[in-house]
Structure formats: structure tokens, C-alpha cells
């Protein structure tokens, strides 16, 4: 499983500060940080530890199996962000 961030995210980066495996991006300072509308969790790296859920001040993060219907797009969206990002990085390299 993985945790997913939904569109309620306000990018206050509390989750980034507590994530033990650094799986939440983009991070402040990254080139795509300012234009990102929200933060995303990399499902390939997330270890389901729950720390980000506790830290999020607007309850924008859910485990994938408990994501409310109105945010059912979020699992794919989070994964897709990292697929695009790694493609962009490979292209740039």
C-alpha cells in the first residue's frame, strides 16, 4: 500500500519534515516546487508509516485503501507525478 496526498494539500511541507524515507516531493528549493499545486507521495518509496498523516494540518493525506471517493483520482495522480518527473530527469540528463 501507500499513502496519497489529495487536492486539499496547502504545501505547508509539515509532511516533508517528518517523512523518514524522503518520499514526498517536490521539496522547497526544487525547480518544480513553486509551480506544483500540491505535494505528492512516491508510492514506490512510501513505507506506510503514517507520520505524514499525523503532521498534515488539513488532513489531506490518506492510506490508499481509505481514500474518500471524491479523491479517488489521487492514487493515480501521485504515482503519475513521479513517472513524469523521472522521465523529465532522464531527458535532462
Amino acid at each position, binding site marked *: 500500500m501507500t499513502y496519497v496526498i489529495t487536492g486539499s494539500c496547502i504545501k505547508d511541507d509539515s509532511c516533508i519534515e517528518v517523512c523518514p524515507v524522503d518520499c514526498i516531493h517536490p521539496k522547497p528549493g526544487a525547480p518544480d516546487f513553486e509551480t506544483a499545486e500540491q505535494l505528492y507521495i512516491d508510492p514506490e518509496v512510501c513505507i506506510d508509516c503514517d507520520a505524514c498523516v499525523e503532521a498534515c494540518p488539513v488532513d489531506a493525506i490518506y492510506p490508499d485503501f481509505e481514500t474518500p471517493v471524491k479523491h479517488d483520482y489521487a492514487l493515480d495522480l501521485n504515482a503519475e507525478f513521479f513517472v*513524469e518527473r523521472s522521465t523529465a530527469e532522464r531527458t535532462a540528463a
Partner: protein
Amino acid sequence: MTAPMRPRVAIVGAGPAGAFAASCLLRARGDAEIDLFERLPTPWGLLRGGVAPDHQEIKRLEDTFDRQTLGRGCRFLGNVEVGRDISHAELMEHYAAVIYATGAQTDKSLGIPGEDLPGSWAATEFVAWYNGHPDYRGLEFDLSAERAVVIGNGNVAADVTRILTLSAPELERTDVADHALEALRESRIREVVVLGRRGPAQAAFTSAELRELGRLDGVDLRVEPDDVQLDPVSRAWLAGEGTFTARKNVQLLREFAARPARPDARRRIVLRFLRSPVEIRGSGVVGAVDVRANEIVRGEDGSLRARTLDGGVETIECGLVLRSVGYRAVPLPDVPFDERHFVLPNDRGRVLGRDGETLPGVYAVGWIKRGPTGILGTNKRDAEETVSRVAEDLGAGALAPPHKPCREQLDALLAERRPDLVGVDGWRAIDRREREDGRRAERPRVKLASRDELLAAAAG
């Protein structure tokens, strides 16, 4: 020997930027005595008065603000207007540092004829009205025509469009102000046309807001297939520099354009792109918006702009226009103001005087510092930057101790000027009352939306 004096800091404006600054300063300087000044009897600024009532999850941030500021000894001085009840010079007599966090309190104008006709409003006025801002309670929006036009493609445009199309039962579950709920229940608006100056690839909506517009219950979202055909300039931009959000938006808009029409829908939203309003017309009140088609061109600085084409004018009949093309800050009395960028001139938060020298002890944070950009969390990093300057200056002894360094001296002045000041206890009483009324009505809260009601509740 006397104990070293705790630095006293005033933050002017208790919106998200002020709250993040207070929280951050308490972490950086645990000994700071912080007073949070606010013009309204209630704190948290646009979190209470801007964030849409159907986005309650975002409003939960107020609990964090409360815990990290008021819960840790920061004082709330509500119903006090700096510049009217207490001057900048007086603040400087009482505090080692003053941080302005006053935001951007007015809207940008379109600069087209008819903009000021009755029935043409800044979207921010509509937002303040439905969110129960006490200064906007008396506004009367005519919702009797079948069509409304929203000008702009950002998240405020998306918010007002949703509020105009949600059903009464949906609105009743929110903390929309009662006067607005009553008016919206009687609304005869069937269609909301949203005009974007630029194309689908440049729309400033977040994909989350756009997706939400497409999922409203009983609302048909219409996008013309022709409108989502990207021009070559936009196509090249999207493939190269385009953001993840822009690509998502275009993808969503194509999905919307492919949907069959739903004539049985309760209400309809029509998203139009590459259209600029050129005139708002009507005899005495708004009757129509004239628009012209645009094309996307690349400006000299590389940015993508809309350029109006020579073709004909299209007339969209409507009875309500909400203009949503951005916020703008207003100058503060006795503090320098950059009239070109509508901010306090500053270096990473230190406010600069006319000669470009820093004004010792004066700082800015949030929209009054950087302009009206970013989302809620942007203010946290912005606050960290400003607070680092404050902490540096305090640590270096660069700030002269104030002439009147005791809290009691300030309190005596305020007691004289604002006997109806609302402190932390007063705000907590308002909050309790609104939430209790909300519990009875099965709503998140029932807002007290006039100054009199708020002050009465604060007085317990």
C-alpha cells in the same frame, strides 16, 4: 541586576501570513512576547473569510494556527485597526519589531467600460459576503437572472462558480453565512459562463479545482471541443516548459469537452477560453458582457500572452458579473509603499525606506511582502524568511529598545482607544458560540456575520 528584557514584537494582521510568522517567531525566539493585531474581531484572515465554505478540510488549519500561536502565549488584539486606532509611530514606541502582514485587501480592475455598473462586482466582494465578513454583510447580489459571467481563470473564479452552482442542501452543510445562504436558495441562476483570457494550457486553476467543477452533483460542465484544440505556441510550451498541473488541466478539459450534454442538469457551467471582455453593458444595471477572441503569442520575455484578434464582438447576456482577475495590496499609513508592485519595498522581509536603506525594526510578510501569489503553505516559507531577519536583528542588538517597553503601557493606550478590543478570550467565546450553533444545525459552524453580533458574543 535586572533580567534581560523579553523582546516585544507586534504582528499587524492575523491572517495566514501573520499566524505563520507568529508561530515561526515563537520557535526561533521562545522568549518573544508577540501581539497579533487584527482589524476584525476574528483571526485567521482569508482562512475564515476567503477559503470557500465547501472546503472545510482546509479550514482545519485554524486548529494548528490556534495551537501554535494563541495556545503558546501569543496575544490576540482584535477589533483594533493599525493606522486608525494606533499609529505606526506608536507601534514603534511600544515594540522592538513590527511585522506587517496585512495582505492584499482590494481587487485589480479590468479597465474596461461598464466595469462599475450595478451587478458587476469584484469576485472578492462576493467571497467576503458569502463567508460572513462583517464589512460585506449589507451587499445585495441580484441572483434573479438566468446567467452569470465570471471573468478570470484562477481558484477564486472556481470558488465563486461552485458557490453559484451548488444546491441549497449542499450549501446548508457548510458554514456559508446565513444571509448568503438565504439569497443563494432563491437564486434563479441556471448558467455560469467562466471566461479565460488565455487558453486551456494557461488556465490558472489547479487541476484539483478544475476536477471538482467537473464533478458537481447535477451540474453540467460544458467545454467546446474547439476550445481545447491547442494552438502551436501552447502545444510547444506544454510539451517543453509546461507544468504537471497544466498538462493535467488540458487532459481534464479534453475529457469535459468529450462529454455528452446533459439537458436535464440542474445548472450548467460553461468554460470559455481565449476570450477577453471588452465592455460590460446595460441600461442602469448589467445586461451583457461583450467579448472578443484572443490568440496566444509569446512575449519578448518569453511568457505566453493573449492578444486580441480583429474579429467581431460576441455578446453574452447576463445579470451578474463577477470579476476575478487578482488581488492588490493597498498602502498603509506612514509606511513606505512600492506603487509599482503594490508591496512594501523590502529585502527578504526587512522593509526599506525611500533611500533604499532598511527601516530598523520594520518587517513585512505574506502578500504585502511578495504580492498576491502562492497558496496557504507558501506563507510558511515566506514567514521563515522574514522571521530569520527579525531573529538576526534581535540577536545582533540591531534594534533599539522601545521607549515604552512594558506591556501594561500598550494595554493602557488600547483600553482608552478601543474599549471594545477583542482578546483571546473574546475570540474563543465567539468561536465556541459559532461551533455550538453549528452543532445544533449539523453544520461546521454558524458564523456571526455582523460586528455587533461578534462583539456581543465576545463580551459573553
